[in-house]
């Protein structure tokens, strides 16, 4: 290897290392840390992005970092020590995992609810109009696997409706179910009301009465490992306050029960 190249490699390595150090130094940020890290369920992406924008506007100098993924994925990350100030889950089970392990701090507050709906491709090829139609032979139905919250909810409404579903696929996330409906692979899928709303005119939602048998509650809590307790409390107040309520109802969420 020529000396020139070696020097170039050294410079590159040094600048990379400096970059890494710089990043972590900025993240630590000493006392004047005005960055809030929020872990939120994937279904909250649109509404939390809006909320965070408004929160930043009202609190100049504050930066909200959002991380979206499946609730169980986020809960696992937090358990493994991921640095987050606030966790908003799409179900109570994953929040309970954290509060049972004393990883949350203060009260766990419910801020929204979500129910399932039938999503069909815009052309509705299988002419689905009610929950019972999903049990018709030849109708390709896709639901979530029972290991994930939307799948547990799907099994609950199936029981309430007394119709035995024979899904052609049990996906591991509600986004995958919606994807199969949008692409027209499936004739129908069970997804959340908010998913249909967010998908626009690519799918049609068909509400059904039994959906009320499985209401998903969204809780939010500050985390013990968080570095910014005050900001966390302020952000949670926005989520559970009137601003949050407006944004969540726009997105199709229901108000928290009780």
């Amino acid at each position, binding site marked *: 290897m020529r000396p020139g190249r070696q020097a170039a490699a050294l410079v590159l390595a040094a600048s990379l290392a400096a970059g890494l150090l710089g990043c972590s130094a900025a993240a630590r940020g000493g006392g004047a840390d005005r960055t809030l890290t929020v872990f939120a369920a994937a279904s909250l992406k649109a509404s939390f992005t809006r909320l965070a924008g408004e929160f930043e506007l009202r609190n100049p100098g504050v930066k909200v970092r959002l991380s979206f993924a499946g609730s169980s994925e986020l809960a*696992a990350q937090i358990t493994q020590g991921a640095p987050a100030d606030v966790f908003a889950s799409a179900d109570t089970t994953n929040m309970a995992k954290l509060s049972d392990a004393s990883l949350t701090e203060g009260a766990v507050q419910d801020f929204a609810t979500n129910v399932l709906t039938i999503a069909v491709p815009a052309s509705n090829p299988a002419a689905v109009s009610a929950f019972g139609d999903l049990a018709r032979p030849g109708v*390709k139905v896709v639901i979530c696997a029972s*290991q994930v919250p939307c799948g547990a909810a799907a099994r609950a409404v199936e029981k309430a409706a007394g119709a035995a579903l024979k*899904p052609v*696929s049990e996906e*591991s996330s509600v986004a995958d179910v919606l994807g199969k409906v949008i692409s027209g692979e499936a004739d129908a899928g069970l997804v959340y009301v908010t998913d249909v709303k967010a998908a626009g005119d690519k799918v049609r939602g068909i509400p059904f009465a039994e959906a009320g048998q499985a209401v998903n509650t969204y809780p939010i809590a500050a985390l013990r490992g968080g570095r910014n307790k005050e900001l966390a409390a302020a952000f949670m107040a926005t989520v559970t306050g009137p601003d949050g309520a407006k944004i969540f109802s726009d997105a199709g969420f229901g108000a928290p029960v009780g």
Partner: protein
Amino acid sequence: MTGLLGSRPGSGARRRGGSTAGRPYSGIPAWIIVLAAAGALFGLLPLAAMVARINWPQFIPLVSSEPSLAALGLSLRTAAASTALCVLLGVPLALVLARGRFPGQRLLRSFVLLPLVLPPVVGGIALLYTFGRQGLLGRSLEVAGIQIAFSTAAVVLAQTFVALPFLVVSLEGALRSAGSRYEAVAATLGARPTTVLRRVTLPLVLPGLASGVLLSFARCLGEFGATLTFAGSLQGVTRTLPLEIYLQRETDAAAAVALSLLLVAVAVIVVGLSYRRPGPAGPGSAGRAEPARS
């Protein structure tokens, strides 16, 4: 990937240069060894970390539960079918690429190898637009009464798509390094192309073919992204072992880790088999070529 690259010289590249006198030169600088050790550690450490997390008393019940066995069985069956399909399509492709001379050959090779560098999810989307119900061929297939979506056939298609380049690369490398001298001799002696292929070419490159077969089988076993996107996930039908692991992780981390180890074990056996041929034997290794399958 390392197996892929490593398999080429072993399968006969050495033969071209004839037998080297004595031991080959191996003056490896010390700093290379240090980096190599770091590289090996980078691969081994995560495996060790996973093994450390195994709940041994629960291991057997976890991997022998009904969903686990269904997933393992499905994985082995679909990987075997996909590998057969890879051989059927990949051997002719490798022959054409290695021996043929035609315009657009390099372009064809690039496209055949594309799935190697493509994220599998992208492959799944492409397959969806080809064989899906609304896809290029899917619509005609559906008219003909063939439904691929959400069937085991979809899993096989996804696996074949991602594994085919592994077979083509291994075999093409073997074909090129074996050269075409013997074939030319056979042809001058009056053997027809099919006879030359059967009696000369294929026996010559059998080790390369065997390692290609094993590598594509291993790649099929590990297929996840394209299957998830294209085939769906249903126990016993489309939920292969990687999909089962991904799902179990949602609720039961211990089961996911146990199943991961099972998959690693199967993969290690498969890759190990493809390396069993002693590399340095060099000349003559092409003839002794029992594909190590049992």
